[in-house]
């Protein structure tokens, strides 16, 4: 691949505590344009917490974020979204009791005057969901509660892609999808990479991670223990890292 990788997002010494629980500790890592980074780690390793911090949902206890070289402080997901970071969280971030279209634009509703531009919202949501391959959705006015797990995941991903940001974060985006649909999500990710986005994906399947990621970052007990290029890495080696931490105590530098 010949695209130049430019650093777009960096976390420096980021720590997050929930009361007595230290979810992540002293995470320093950078993300680059035109690159898919796979984030792996055992349950409770702190992956989702890290992703929530860089997408503005949670605020770090200490540490600093940089976006395109500038120090940034996200007080909410809205700040992060406006800066250029879009995320699909592990819980999908949908409101079941609301319609597809209202979910789609939640927090970013296009308006005409004071009122939401419902026509534009419907057309845009329909077009985006059609493009992403959700083609037998009856109406964008139906409640999310009526949709299947796969359909919900597609809506959540479609929403994240629609806003055309610079960083796309996916926290276990394929957990409810069939093999065929998973490949579709991989296509979006490659597409986003081609357009120059920094793509971050958390996945539990080693096979999937090795298939899609250019680079793999490993979390272990709240710490980032390895940051490796994905050049023919072995599945077993990766699994070894996940469960036992580093073979030696040395951290592999970026």
């Amino acid at each position, binding site marked *: 691949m010949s695209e130049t990788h430019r650093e777009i997002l960096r976390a420096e010494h980021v720590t997050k505590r929930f009361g007595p629980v230290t979810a992540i500790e002293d995470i320093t890592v950078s993300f680059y344009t035109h690159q898919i980074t796979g984030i792996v780690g055992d349950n409770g390793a702190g992956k989702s917490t890290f992703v929530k911090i860089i997408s503005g949902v949670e605020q770090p206890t200490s540490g600093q974020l940089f976006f395109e070289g500038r120090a940034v402080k996200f007080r909410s997901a809205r700040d992060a979204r406006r800066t250029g970071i879009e995320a699909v969280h592990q819980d999908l971030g949908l*409101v079941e*009791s*609301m319609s597809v279209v209202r979910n789609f*634009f939640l927090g970013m509703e296009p308006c005409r005057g*004071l009122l939401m531009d419902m*026509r534009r919202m419907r057309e845009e949501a329909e077009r985006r969901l059609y493009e992403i391959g959700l083609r037998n959705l009856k109406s964008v006015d139906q409640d999310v509660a009526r949709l299947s797990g796969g359909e919900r995941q597609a809506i959540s991903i479609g929403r994240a892609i629609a806003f055309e940001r610079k960083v796309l974060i996916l926290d276990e985006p394929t957990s409810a999808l069939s093999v065929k649909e998973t490949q579709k999500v991989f296509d979006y990710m490659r597409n986003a990479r081609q357009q120059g986005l920094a793509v971050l994906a958390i996945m539990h399947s080693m096979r999937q991670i090795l298939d899609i990621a250019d680079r793999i970052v490993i979390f272990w007990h709240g710490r980032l223990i390895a940051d490796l290029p994905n050049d023919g890495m072995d599945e077993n080696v990766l699994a070894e890292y996940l469960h036992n931490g580093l073979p030696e105590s040395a951290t592999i530098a970026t």
Partner: protein
Amino acid sequence: MNRDSTMKEHVALFDHADRGWKQTFQSIVRSRDSSIVLAAAILVLLFSLTSGGQFLQGSTWPTILSSTAELGIVTIGVALLMIGGDFDLSVGANFSFSALIMATLMEHGESGLVGMLVALGIGLFIGFLNGIITVFLAIPSFVATLGTWLIWEGVTLVVTGGSTITVFQRSVVLNLLGGVLVGGIRWEVLWWVVIGIVVSIVLYRTPFGNAVFAVGGRAQSAREAGVPVRRIRVISFTVCGLLAAVAGVVQFGHLQSMASSYGEYYQLYAIAAAVVGGTVLTGGRGSIVGTMLGSLILSMLDAGLILSGVSTFWYQAVIGAIVIVAVAMHTRLSRLVRGGD
């Protein structure tokens, strides 16, 4: 890219013919509301029979509509708050306290306008305080407003000594709040309808309304989408407090007198009316039109029972039964359409 061909295909797939305001209207007047209209119609029929026709007489309706408006304005605020996932048990105390302040000011020679503005300011402040306490101390609103209910009721009793304040002076403001508009129907009925329309539009057509539904439906998702959850909740509490005071001052405009007991149980009747109207106790779903019909049903019950010669003591018992029946019906109904409202 082949976006053009994709576009054509998708246009064929979705029907754009009747979108826009019609759709909005449909979302405001949900199918669930039609069952409430039916319930109201049945009540009218029933009471016409049991009251020997008296219930249908023209003179009955201005009274029913006035009490509907007074309860209804409170209920609209309570319903908005419930859709956002919160409760306000202090609206009854707020109603009496703010209206009593207006009455006291007028008793001491202040103009109706000043009295009204101060009263509305107090209602707004009480609501805002409820929001701050609930959101920033992270206390369930049910408990927080149980506390503020008792606090404000206590303050009211201390200030007024429990007495009734009557104002005899004529005032344009009092007249515009609760005086007769046309055919025995009072201005307050118009204000109720106007407030209902405004709040409906805000809920269904503005980003704020979208946020309220989201916060009530699943606050964490709202937060992840960047909705300022705490701000939305505090604003909803504030609006609810303001509307409680509005209801208080229109009733004062109507009766020209006020006492701490006038707002008693309003919080419970308001929740009952909202629930009868299809607002869900767990938040995220509800309808302002349904809520308004719910207030009408409660007021019709009040008048209908009296005209039918039933002891007014039965009113509470009947409302209690109606609430249970209504919730059971709504639950069935929404199960039938699988999560739809």
